[in-house]
């Protein structure tokens, strides 16, 4: 059978199909390159920190306080301070955020008030951290009279992380199929019984993942704690939430920009410790998610 210019009877490629294929290849290549570029900064950062900072990481660096105007000694008080801050802010933000998320997803009626609340949450999530810092000074340090303390700084961090915890809780709850709720309600379960027995067990992995990701974000923030509770230098460890504390992010800022004659490796080593802490949290979160996911099947 002859193949004319306009007649095409078999299934071989035409110039037009060829063009589709080549466009698809180009698109795929660009998308792949973008993904590869994403990994580049991550490895570059880790590489930089390890090569410049690893030499300073010693037992002394990890377990002793800074000495000689921060040009010697270690970062132990800053590590402990950061743990205090994320611990207290988590203790405040996680229960409130999870409960608010449950209310908004499971109870709140579909009306303009709910829409306003959801809008407020989205906007709160977009507020820059320095603005949270100023709010923290006004609200917690001055108005509530909590002073510059771990409590004020943690509350500021909690306000900052709350919107995302609420949003991720809502998302996790919404991923539980509505059919399960129907089944439970029509068997005479109350809303709360349904949430407790059915919805929460099937969304806990998502909820916890959201919370832990916010913990690691709180660990890295500097602005919100700078004016509310973190100190440049403290010769002692905090004894209660009313004390100030040092913090890794704050310490990194200090040794990088505020103090002369700091050994070159110190800022990198501090950053490496902070990054390790954050990555550890994230891996823990991923592990937990995988574990809880494996238990759930529908």
């Amino acid at each position, binding site marked *: 059978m002859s193949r004319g210019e306009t007649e095409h009877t078999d299934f071989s490629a035409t110039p037009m199909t060829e063009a589709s294929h080549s466009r698809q290849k180009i698109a795929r290549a660009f998308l792949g390159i973008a993904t590869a570029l994403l990994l580049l900064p991550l490895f570059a950062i880790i590489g930089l920190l390890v090569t410049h900072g690893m030499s300073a990481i010693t037992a002394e660096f990890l377990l002793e306080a800074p000495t000689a105007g921060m040009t010697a000694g270690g970062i132990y008080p800053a590590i402990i301070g950061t743990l205090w801050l994320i611990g207290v802010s988590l203790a405040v933000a996680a229960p409130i955020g999870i409960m608010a998320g449950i209310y908004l997803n499971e109870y709140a*009626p*579909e*009306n303009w008030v709910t829409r306003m609340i959801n809008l407020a949450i989205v906007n709160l999530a977009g507020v820059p951290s320095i603005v949270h810092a100023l709010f923290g000074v006004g609200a917690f340090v001055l108005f509530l009279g909590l002073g510059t303390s771990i409590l004020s700084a943690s509350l500021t961090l909690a306000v900052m992380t709350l919107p995302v915890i609420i949003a991720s809780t809502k998302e996790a709850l919404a991923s539980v*199929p509505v*059919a*399960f709720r*129907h*089944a*439970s*309600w*029509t*068997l*005479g*379960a*109350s809303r709360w*019984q349904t949430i407790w*027995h*059915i919805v929460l067990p*099937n969304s806990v992995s998502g909820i916890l993942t959201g919370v832990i990701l916010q913990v690691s974000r709180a660990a890295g923030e500097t602005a919100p704690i700078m004016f509310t509770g973190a100190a440049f230098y403290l010769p002692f460890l905090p004894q209660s939430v009313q004390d100030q504390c040092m913090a890794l992010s704050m310490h990194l800022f200090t040794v990088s920009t505020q103090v002369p004659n700091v050994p070159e490796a110190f800022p990198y080593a501090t950053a490496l410790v902070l990054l390790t802490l954050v990555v550890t949290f994230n891996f823990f979160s991923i592990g937990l998610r995988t574990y809880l996911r494996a238990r*759930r*099947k*529908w």
Partner: protein
Amino acid sequence: MANQASIETRDVRLWYGEFQALKGIDLDVSRGRITGLIGPSGCGKTTLLRCFNRINERYDYVRTEGSLIIDGHNIYAPDVDLIELRKRVGMVFQRPNPLPISIRDNVLYGYRLHTPKAERSRGAEDEALESALKSVQLWDILKDRLGDRATRLQLEQQQKLCIARLLPLKPSIILMDEPCSALDPDATAKVEELIRQIAGEFTILIVTHNMAQARRVSDECVFMLIGEIVEHGRTEDLFIAPKDQRTADYIEGRFG
């Protein structure tokens, strides 16, 4: 009591926001029989079904008026507790929706919700479980793997399980919303057979799109059209000699 209707509705009207989905429904549902609700999509049959356990109300924009009496009580009266209502009026859905817990926990889910802790015992639970699963012919198949996830069963077994989990609550009415539409013909036949077997003990209302199924399964049939009941009668009468032309047109497949 035996002759009294299980459900009596008088002038039931329902709105979704501005849209009126039910336009004055008067219906007596016979006790202990299977009543089929048929009609084209959007005729209000599922909406009506969902009035009987008040599950429509989870939406704020739904408004219901009229009287709806189950076993002598108006279920829209202010003193009616939804939990008590749903204990007595069970529901089976279009897509089998076993809960993502074990087979055992599924069957006992409602039972545990409604039995005070002090009265619960392993023995009573085992008994309720065995009796419910035997009623739906799943006991012999599942008795050795009661701890398995119910969501991993075959669809037919899932749907039977969804019926079984209602039984320990001793409901007086079971509502079924196209219970076989997700099943293959073989599974459909088996679930229909089960429905016929448990009838008598319960009043069963079944919504279906499938004319042949309505004919096979139901004792009485209600044909609905745009929010109204057109015809209600014994299934064989309605299918063989419909009184209303619209019923005749629908069951003969001229529309819908």
